[in-house]
């Protein structure tokens, strides 16, 4: 099913509040073969001058997935784009880091569907979503831009 550009471009998700959990950071470190103990040992992190275990530079992607938006979610057929998981590929990913993120931080995520475009005569649709992560003081800590490819036919 093709995605209706007019129905989704410009949609802004509701703000989602997420807590950066030390346990998940430790699990992420294990899953990615991390060798620097700063990323899985709170004592090592503090010894290196961090207030707590830092989130690695791709972690905003996982935080966003951990709190799917009710409005504008890629896969939600009722409130989002309703994309079939069999048809998706990850096309592009960008991160912009403004300030470090650590275990214990509480962030507010907002995701905007900023563009949807075709390639290969419509055989592929590209969905661009941009997510901002602010702290409770309203300081922008990180941003990301995700491009999802939907294969048709």
């Amino acid at each position, binding site marked *: 099913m093709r995605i209706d550009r007019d129905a989704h471009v410009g949609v802004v998700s509701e703000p989602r509040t997420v807590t950066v959990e030390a346990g*998940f950071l430790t*699990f*992420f470190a*294990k*899953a*990615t*073969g*991390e*060798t*620097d103990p700063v990323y899985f040992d709170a004592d090592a992190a503090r010894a290196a001058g961090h207030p707590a275990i*830092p989130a*690695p*530079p*791709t972690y905003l*992607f*996982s*935080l966003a*997935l*951990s709190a799917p938006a009710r409005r504008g979610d890629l896969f939600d057929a009722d409130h989002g784009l309703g994309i079939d*998981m*069999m*048809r*998706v*590929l*990850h*096309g*592009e*990913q*960008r*991160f*912009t*880091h403004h300030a*470090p993120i650590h275990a214990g931080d509480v962030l507010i995520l907002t995701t905007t569907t900023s563009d949807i475009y075709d390639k290969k005569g419509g055989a592929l649709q590209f969905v661009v979503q941009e997510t901002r992560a602010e702290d409770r003081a309203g300081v922008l800590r990180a941003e990301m*831009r995700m491009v999802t490819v939907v294969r048709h036919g």
Partner: protein
Amino acid sequence: MGEGDILPELVRGPITRHTLALFAGASHDHVPLHTDSDFARAAGMDDVFAHGMLSMAYLAQALRCWVSAERLLSWNVRFTAITPLHATVHCRGHVIERDGNRARLSIGAWTDRNLQTLDGTAVIALD
């Protein structure tokens, strides 16, 4: 750090089903294309394949061998091919240009069959 300087290569893998199961859980990416062979084949794939974000996480580790994570200002990649099961991931980069206290790097990942899977750039802060 100057133009043409080459990042030390970081090698991870080979990618196993276990690697993908762990990463699916840890990263909150539960798309079954990466963990369920039946689902992946029904979607027209040969088998499960690695999350692009797993290679991007490896690439972050490679960058950190060079500069501390705090110096990574912005970075982006295109996922130019899927990373198949059992592949080894080779993360590489080099300096494209240095402009004052910033450097722009070309970064990427390749499989052990020399198939490029990630292609991107990173901007880092220098002293």
